[in-house]
C-alpha cells in the first residue's frame, strides 16, 4: 500500500477555505488540473455516497469518485476512486482542514492510500502528491491572496 501525505498552510480563515473546497462537485472551479464535473444521478453533492464524474484537464480522461465522508464539524471529506485512467486500485483519500489560531489561518492536510498497478510508484506519488494535492494548496493560496 502506497501512502501520500501533503500538508500546507493556507493564508485564510478556516471557514473561508472550507467554503471553497467543501462542494464535492466544485473541484474544476478552483483546481486547474481538472475540468467539467457533475454528480451522477442528479444527487446533491453533499449526499454521502454520491459519485462525482469529472475530467482531467487537457483530455487526460475521466475520473469517477464516491463521497465516503463529509463533516462540517471536523472540516473533512473522504472519497474513493471508482474508475480512473490512473494506474491505481484501492484508492481512498481525505482532505482535512485545521484552524491555525495564531494568525487565523488554515492547515490543509490531504492524504491518500492506494496500490500502484503499473510498477511506477514514484511517478504516481508525484502526480497525486505534488501534481494534485500540493497544486491545490498553491492555487488556494493564490486565490485568497488576490482577495485581500
Amino acid at each position, binding site marked *: 500500500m502506497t501512502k501520500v501525505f*501533503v*500538508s*500546507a*498552510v493556507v493564508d485564510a480563515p478556516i471557514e473561508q477555505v472550507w467554503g471553497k473546497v467543501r462542494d464535492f462537485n466544485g473541484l474544476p472551479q478552483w483546481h486547474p488540473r481538472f475540468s467539467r464535473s457533475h454528480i451522477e444521478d442528479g444527487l446533491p453533492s453533499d449526499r454521502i455516497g454520491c459519485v462525482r464524474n469529472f475530467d482531467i484537464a487537457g483530455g487526460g480522461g475521466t475520473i469517477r469518485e464516491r463521497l465516503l465522508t463529509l463533516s462540517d464539524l471536523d472540516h473533512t471529506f473522504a472519497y474513493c476512486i471508482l474508475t480512473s485512467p490512473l494506474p491505481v486500485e484501492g484508492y481512498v483519500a481525505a482532505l482535512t482542514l485545521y*484552524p*491555525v489560531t*495564531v494568525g487565523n489561518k488554515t*492547515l490543509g492536510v490531504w492524504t491518500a492510500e492506494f496500490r500502484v498497478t503499473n510498477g511506477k510508484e514514484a511517478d504516481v506519488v508525484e502526480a497525486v502528491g505534488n501534481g494534485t494535492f500540493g497544486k491545490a494548496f498553491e492555487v488556494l493560496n493564490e486565490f485568497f491572496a488576490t482577495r485581500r
Partner: protein
Amino acid sequence: MAKVYRSAVIDAPAEVVWAYVRDFNALPKWHPAIATSEIEGGLSSDRVGCVRRFTRRSDGGLLREQLLALSDVDRTFTYNILISPMPVANYVATMRFTPITAGNKTFAEWWAEFDVTSGPEQVTVTDIGDNVFVAGFASIGSKLAKH
C-alpha cells in the same frame, strides 16, 4: 465543561520539534512559565502513567500531572492534572505535532477540557490558551530557531 484550543506553525521540522517536546519532564527546558520539574518515583518520562511534579516560575506554585497517552506515530501526548494552583478540575489536555510538508515546518496543536472551579470561566480559558499554550508555542519556536 470548558474547552480551549490553540494551534500555531513552528518553523522547524516535525521530527525536530517532537524530539524536543516529547520528554514529559522537559517543561522547564521549553516553557517560560515553568521553573523546575521531576518525574515522581524515578520513572522514565516516556512511561505512560508517570507523574511530573513541577513548579511555576512566577510563584513557585506546584503542579502534578499524569501522562495518559504517548504516541511516536501521531506525535501526540495526553495528560491530566492531579494538583494545580489553577482553578480547574477534571482537566485533560493533549499536544499534537503534524508535519507541514510545504516548507518542512510543524503544525502544533494544544487543547484541553476542564471545569472552572472559581471565577469567570472565560478568564481561565483565555489565561490557559494564551499564557500557557500560545506562550509555549512561541518559546519552542524561538528556542529551536537558535539551534
